[in-house]
């Protein structure tokens, strides 16, 4: 059981990372990641909305009729987005300025509606909360990594601190074209990494089962033959 909770949380980090693996929420991803700080702000705001809406939708899942579930989800999400927007405006005006229109647009962020539809509407409250946290963490991490790379290469700073002239700033990285380029490279890396993790997992499973135990070559191939044949 423990494993199940951990899996629900951790799948959002890499294996089903909403940005790099599911390629959802691309619009805010490309628009706000000109600096690492903006990525952190956007990620935190979206994570809050995602966690709260997942919990509420999971609680209401037996009350909401199937035919009107999408409008109902959106009402819940819009409520929490409004809360976040007001809080950020009041306490973090600089973040509010940097994120601009993308903060209220969390309402239509497809990661949040996607998790409500795919997970929270079908699972218990605890799992839905973990799913929201995991997906939010994955989204935030992705935005910080992308914002960090673009800020470091394009502006010569890290979270607003000068990097001491380590890299001469190459402005194209903070322009949209550079955003697409960094996005593509990171998707490639994430795909490679999670493919390798999956292969390792199947290998371990196979080695543990009778399939490999019965094979005389098991000692030599470490289950590699089985994954290749797949």
């Amino acid at each position, binding site marked *: 059981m423990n494993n199940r909770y951990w899996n629900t949380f951790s799948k959002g980090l890499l294996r089903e990372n909403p940005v790099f693996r599911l390629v959802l929420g691309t619009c805010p991803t490309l628009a706000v990641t000109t600096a690492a700080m903006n990525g952190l702000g956007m990620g935190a705001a979206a994570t809050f909305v995602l966690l709260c809406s997942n919990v509420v939708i999971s609680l209401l899942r037996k009350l909401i009729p199937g035919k009107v579930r999408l409008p109902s989800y959106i009402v819940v999400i819009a409520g929490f987005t409004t809360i976040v927007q007001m809080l950020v405006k009041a306490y973090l005006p600089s973040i509010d300025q940097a994120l601009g229109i993308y903060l209220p647009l969390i309402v239509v962020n497809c990661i949040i509606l996607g998790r409500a539809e795919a997970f929270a509407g079908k699972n218990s409250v605890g799992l839905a909360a973990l799913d929201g946290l995991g997906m939010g963490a994955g989204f935030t991490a992705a935005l910080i990594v992308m914002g960090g790379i673009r800020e470091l290469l394009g502006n010569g700073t890290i979270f607003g601190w000068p990097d001491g002239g380590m890299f*001469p700033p*190459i*402005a*194209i*990285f903070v*322009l949209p*074209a*550079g955003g697409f*380029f960094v996005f593509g490279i990171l998707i490639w890396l994430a795909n490679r990494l999670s493919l390798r993790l999956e292969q390792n997992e199947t290998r371990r499973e196979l080695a543990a089962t009778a399939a490999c135990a019965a094979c005389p070559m098991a000692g030599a191939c470490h289950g590699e033959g089985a994954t290749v044949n797949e």
Partner: protein
Amino acid sequence: MEHTLLVSSSPHVHCGMNTRDIMRDVIIALSPALAASVWLFGLRALAVELVCVASALAAEYLSRRVMKRPQTVGDLSAVVTGLLLAFNLPATIPLWQAAFGSVVAIVVAKQMFGGLGQNFVNPALVGRIVLMGSFPETMNNWVDPLKWLSDPLGHLGTVDAVSSATPLAQMAADSTVEIDAMPLLFGMRGGSLGETCVIALVLGGLYLVIRRIISPMIPVVYIGTVFVMTWLLGADPVTHILSGGLMLGAIFMATDYATCPINRSGKLVYAIGCGLLTVLIRLYGSLPDGVSFAIVIMNILTPLIERVVRPRPFGNKRGKAVAK
């Protein structure tokens, strides 16, 4: 008996020419402009060109190596890309920025899409546009031609030379300004290394046409469109076709095999599109010159143009979909 009646699909006759020969001819065609750039802008121009070519070759070699693909550095296409990129840069650009542009051109625009023939836009132009987006100050730092003669070796070190406006920038600032056409022919103006000397570029273009490396269709229609459009819109057509990157772009970059349409009507549409976009950007856009963006946009549209002008097989009805 069965050997004498061998059945194979076309082509049946091969002219014996390969990529390397074509690229060698292009390099020969570029050499008058190369000589002109050294004459006009000094040894600093030669340094920029050497750095661009060397880093393009290194990037080509290393990326083929890393991707474990057959080595293609010997086909000389990287030399052409490096030279064309250098021709699009000002003489004062820091050398590491020139090298960065070369690496972007080869790795991002060419090898990441599969190498020569698979690139969907002209690599040298991508390098130039990325540099323009990245380093707007150094990319717009023009020097007057022949200024280096007063200090033949000293100019190698100085990067922040006095910048002078290009004719297009002068016209953009003040549309009534009169510019003499004669100095433009010989390249006596501020501008990128290889774009200024019109005579050298036209010589190279004639060589390519005589050697049948390129068809004159694209350059002639492209330059003609710019001439007619600027004339119709009330600008000075002669100055417009002799300045900016038009000659260099129309002769050497718009004619890149991989990124322009194959058949004649496709080339016509493509060249007219290039001309129209160039004039629109020059006269109404915020940039003084629009050649590189015009060519890149038409590169991207090339697959769509080819779909429209696909030849109708004999006997098929017009408008009927061709069986795939």
